[in-house]
């Protein structure tokens, strides 16, 4: 058993950390306040390969696999969860759904531009009446001649306002419903009939734009069907499966940042005539955080290893997302406690971290859905099939 990362991954982490520390962290507060991540930052990240980490080089990716992708998400979220979420939605679910099941022609058409950051991708599943119950989607695609026409609405779409290509799940055969009658389409934002709503005002992740998408008879040529007609639901569920691993990695970065702040603060802050590091109450909180973070780190990187080695990973991926989001929320909550009033100040990064972390327990499948996924995998091992 070898727990050392290969040297190329250590070097990759060093480069990414340097970039995050120098180029992203100083902007994190401004990004939160202004609600905007400058497209120039995304362009520069694209030029370094950040926007296509897990994908093979033949499609313009970095060729660093799920392991490299998890490393990047951990580092990005340590610096700015808003930036991490834009990239995570772009790579982890947006481009990933095209990469997993798209035709070679479709991948050749879009992936080089997506991986280099010339185009930003989004993944559109959620609707007003379809969230955890993803199969309840209603956005309709009807075939007329050589093209499909999309009609309907998607909601809460991360990257919605900035995406150039959107992978949309639509019903192609209402008689079969989502399972068997849904198909994924790659839609370009410049096509007629497509429009986005105003950016949502959220509790956290202010720099990561979210909006609803309107489809008013958007004509999509047949060659922009991602995967097979009728199997779109499978593509999307597979995508979400793998996306949970890197989401776990992102939460790991958030928790780690909170721990680092606490260790620094425990050394600096003096109360009762000495550094608060000498108080057991502080030591216990820091120790608990460190232990939970270490367990999460082991789980995330082992799961990345499962993905890269072609092993089944659905159960572990659910665990990454579940354990990760709850660990991060817990750690950041403790960090606020350790910092006292400073933890609540809007001029200090913890208040932002607290708001930014909450969404991780909700998006890309709520934690309740993750528990269903884990339980259903467990029960399947003993021959019981659970239906949602």
């Amino acid at each position, binding site marked *: 058993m070898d727990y050392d990362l*290969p*040297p*190329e991954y250590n*070097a*990759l982490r*060093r*480069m*990414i950390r*340097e*970039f995050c520390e120098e180029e992203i962290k100083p902007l994190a507060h401004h990004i939160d306040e202004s609600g905007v991540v400058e497209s120039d930052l995304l362009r520069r990240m694209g*030029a*370094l*390969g*950040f926007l296509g*980490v897990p994908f093979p*080089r033949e499609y313009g*990716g*970095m*060729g*660093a696999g799920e392991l*490299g992708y998890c490393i990047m998400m951990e580092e990005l979220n340590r610096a700015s969860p808003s930036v991490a979420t834009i990239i995570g939605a772009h790579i982890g679910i947006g481009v990933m759904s095209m990469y997993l099941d798209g035709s070679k022609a479709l991948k050749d058409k879009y992936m080089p531009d997506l991986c280099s950051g010339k185009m930003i991708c989004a993944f559109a599943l959620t609707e007003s009446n379809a969230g955890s119950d993803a199969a309840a989607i209603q956005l309709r695609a009807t075939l007329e001649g050589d093209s499909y026409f999309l009609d309907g609405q998607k909601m809460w779409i991360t990257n919605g306002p900035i995406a150039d290509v959107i992978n949309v799940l639509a019903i192609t055969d209402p008689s079969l419903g989502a399972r068997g009658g849904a198909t994924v389409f790659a839609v370009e934002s410049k096509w007629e009939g497509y429009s986005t709503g105003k950016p949502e005002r959220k509790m956290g992740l202010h720099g990561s734009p979210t909006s609803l998408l309107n489809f008013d008879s958007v004509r999509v040529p047949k060659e922009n069907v991602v995967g097979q007609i009728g199997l779109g639901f499978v593509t999307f569920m597979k995508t979400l499966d793998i996306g949970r691993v890197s989401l776990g990695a992102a939460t790991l970065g958030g928790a780690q940042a909170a721990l680092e702040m606490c260790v620094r603060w425990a050394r600096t802050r003096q109360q009762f005539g000495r550094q608060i590091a000498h108080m057991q109450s502080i030591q216990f909180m820091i120790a608990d955080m460190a232990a939970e973070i270490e367990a999460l780190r082991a789980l995330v990187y082992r799961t990345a290893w499962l993905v890269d080695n072609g092993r089944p990973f659905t159960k572990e991926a659910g665990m990454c997302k579940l354990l990760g989001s709850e660990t991060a929320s817990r750690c950041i909550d403790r960090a606020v406690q350790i910092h006292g009033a400073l933890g609540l100040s809007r001029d200090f990064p913890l208040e932002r971290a607290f708001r930014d972390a909450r969404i991780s327990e909700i998006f890309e499948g709520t934690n309740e859905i993750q528990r269903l996924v884990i339980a259903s995998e467990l029960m399947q091992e003993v021959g019981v099939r659970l239906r949602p």
Partner: protein
Amino acid sequence: MRILIPIKQILHPAGMTVNRKAGKVFVNREEYVTNPAGKRALEAALRIKDGTDADVIVAAIGPTRTADALLEARAMGADRAILIPADTTDEALIVRLLATLCEHIGGVDLLITGDSALDTGISLGPRLSEALNFAYLGSAVQCVVEGSAVRIVRRDDPAGRLYNAYEAALPAVVTVTRAGSAPRYPHGGKIITTYRDANAVETIPLSDLGLSESDLQPVAVERGQSFPPEREFGRQVSVEEIASWIR
């Protein structure tokens, strides 16, 4: 044109604590990074390469872990990386090894190096120019090659208002300060392929340079560490007090 960039690895400064009472430096985390000024020297060379067909060669002297700094330099865009496996920190020896290396690889036109190492504060520049009989231009913030001359810009006023340009005919040695252009980030894909390439770093053993271990007797001998006395706290002065001095 051939440019040689000597680089060195140093312990990450954040991983150390200085204990004056014990008279010791404690290494809490053994993490090595490339000397920052050396990285800026490499950036200066890569900028020259961007505009011409210069061949940028990085070289380092040190134990096998030093290969990491060389691989990083290759990922940033250096054409060739050479490791001389010798565990010495003696600058006189390092300069001798580098001068021998220059000859071994068929001569170089320009040597660019960091103007000071973050750990020792020492620059190899003047010694290298002496050993090779090259012109020397120190403490550059910018460095360009025009024809057969190298031109640098140096900040000659500590307050940073006065910049002068200096020129020397090649071959020359240039040192770059930490105020030089920020080093570029290597492309992630380039890191992956470089580190996976077993031939990315060439190792030139001492014997190939016509030297042996016995030639590595240090010129300077380290007898121990001492620390300057701790500085006394100053006095806080008010604006009014300063105003009274001016009057």
